[in-house]
């Protein structure tokens, strides 16, 4: 058991994300920033993983279905020691294993993603595999809200409920924006929770930037059906001029913007360090 200051950890992760994208001159900053607390809650407060043995058979599995938000994932894996933190400097460089979407060459990454709408299907297969193998491993899949228009998501939703996969938790980073604008303008998703319930899932709605709510939901008791955590988030969370701006989906900050963003994240880190609120991890 270890306790982590979630807010401080999220600020640290956001700083790593900002550095990676600024130095690479490439990346998907908006969705990485919105998912920071979700990733921290999963990796520091929920999942059983072993950075020294990434393929430990009894580990819990995580799939980043919104694979473009890979920066936040790599930052967390590096912070946990799955690979050296300095390697984050190679993000998107020629020959680096840290390519712009999740890649299994990186220790700790379970599956290659990048094309949206695959992750829940893969996770549903993993969860079914865990059941058939009588394994206690749990499976977590993080999806973006924009990707929910992919039909395969709903094929997977149907199958997961059919096979009563209560070892499967899907999380939606509900930041409300996709590359072209608000999700509801691009293609209406609401009433989203009702849709998942109708597909046979147990739905928990949380604030996606609240550790207590996230960790409680992610560790909820099994209910004989798959669990959807609908996490309301802010795209670009933590950097004032990036928040809630659709065009920052894959924007790259200028040097001036980088320095401002860095200062904002430093201030958040310091504030969180003073607060000292912890979350528990097993």
């Amino acid at each position, binding site marked *: 058991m270890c306790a982590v200051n979630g807010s401080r950890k999220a600020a640290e992760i956001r700083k790593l994300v900002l550095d990676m994208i600024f130095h690479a001159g490439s990346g998907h900053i908006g969705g990485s920033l919105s998912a920071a607390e979700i990733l921290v809650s999963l990796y520091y407060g929920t999942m059983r993983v072993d950075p020294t043995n990434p393929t430990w058979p009894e580990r819990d599995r995580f799939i980043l279905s919104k694979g473009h938000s890979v920066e936040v994932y790599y930052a967390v894996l590096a912070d946990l020691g799955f690979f050296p933190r300095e390697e984050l400097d190679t993000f998107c460089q020629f020959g680096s294993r840290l390519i712009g979407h999740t890649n299994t060459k990186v220790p700790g990454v379970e599956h290659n993603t990048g094309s949206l709408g*695959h992750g829940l299907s893969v996770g549903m297969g993993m969860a079914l595999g865990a059941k058939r193998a009588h394994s206690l491993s749990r499976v977590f899949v993080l999806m973006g809200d924009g990707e929910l228009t992919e039909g395969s998501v709903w*094929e997977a939703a149907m199958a997961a409920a059919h096979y009563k996969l209560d070892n499967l938790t899907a999380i939606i980073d509900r930041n409300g924006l996709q590359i072209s604008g608000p999700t509801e303008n691009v293609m209406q998703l609401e009433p989203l929770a009702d849709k998942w319930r109708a597909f046979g899932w147990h739905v928990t709605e949380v604030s996606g930037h609240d550790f207590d709510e996230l960790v409680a939901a992610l560790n909820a008791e099994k209910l004989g059906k798959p669990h959807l955590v609908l996490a309301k988030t802010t795209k670009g969370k933590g950097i004032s001029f990036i928040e809630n701006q659709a065009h920052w989906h894959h924007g790259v900050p200028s040097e001036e913007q980088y320095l401002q963003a860095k200062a904002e994240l430093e201030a958040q880190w310091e504030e969180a360090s003073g607060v000292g609120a912890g979350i528990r991890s097993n």
Partner: protein
Amino acid sequence: MEQAYEATRRAFSQTLLRLAKNNRHIVAMTSDSRGSVTLNAYAEELPEQYIEMGIAEQNLVSAASGLTSFGFVPFVCSPACFLSMRSIEQVKVDVAYSATNVKLIGISAGVSYGALGMSHHSLQDFAVMRAIPNLAIIAPCDAVQTEAVTEVIAAFQGPVYVRLGRNPVSQVYAPGTDCFQWGKAVELAVGNDVTIIATGEVVQAAVTAAKQLRQQGIKARVLNMHTIKPLDNEAVLRAARETRAIITVEEHSVMGGLGGAVAEVLGQHQPCPLRIMAIADEVTPSGSQSELLAHYGLDAAGITACVTGVAREAARDRAFK
């Protein structure tokens, strides 16, 4: 000679059942295709090793890749027309790119659905699958070879696409023949005039054609190119050096299949006269599998006629040199 006829899909399902009884990691997955794959007996005997995914080929393929995370060896069994097109991106990303140990079994391939039409024909599967790195492609020619292929891929670690037929096909091989070596073409007839390279269920027609050609004094080498990828380049180049022309025969579009693969090798390393016998790049007329194959010259008579012409041209060209 008495000919035995058996569908390759049936040989596959019987072999898989035998293998799965001794390997609890093998799972068969279907897309409401249990009956058409002939997996009813398998599903009844081994319900814990059988997974129905409904008519949802994208989820089918991705879920299979997920199952490998717990050591399972999924055999994804679905009509080739849907498996190779509806779920091709899942094949690319979740199977080939992610290097998951998934076996893709496309049944009722080519024009074996006959008059059901273009939606059900699988004439692009070699072309699309070939362009994806880290994916082997195999097309057995009969039931005996299908059994051998099924055994080999079950033991192989990595992604494979196997293309099977629907209707009973005459046996090229006697039962028990050692007829499948990964990536190695099998010489079914000896000859140094021309070479017929065939794959899948039209191999039998190529063998029959070679016998007819021999009566006309044309000695045709016949290669069973069961592995489309990795292609046996050496056998292709040897044929180009030792015979005067190459004729490829396949139940696939004329674009991007066996003929295309052979052309890529010849064009770059050993240019040689080549004729690609395949289904024309058009919407096929209505008809049964055998009617359609005959229409496109993919039966023994059509192959014999084509090879006769090619051999005559090759001999004439040589005489002028």
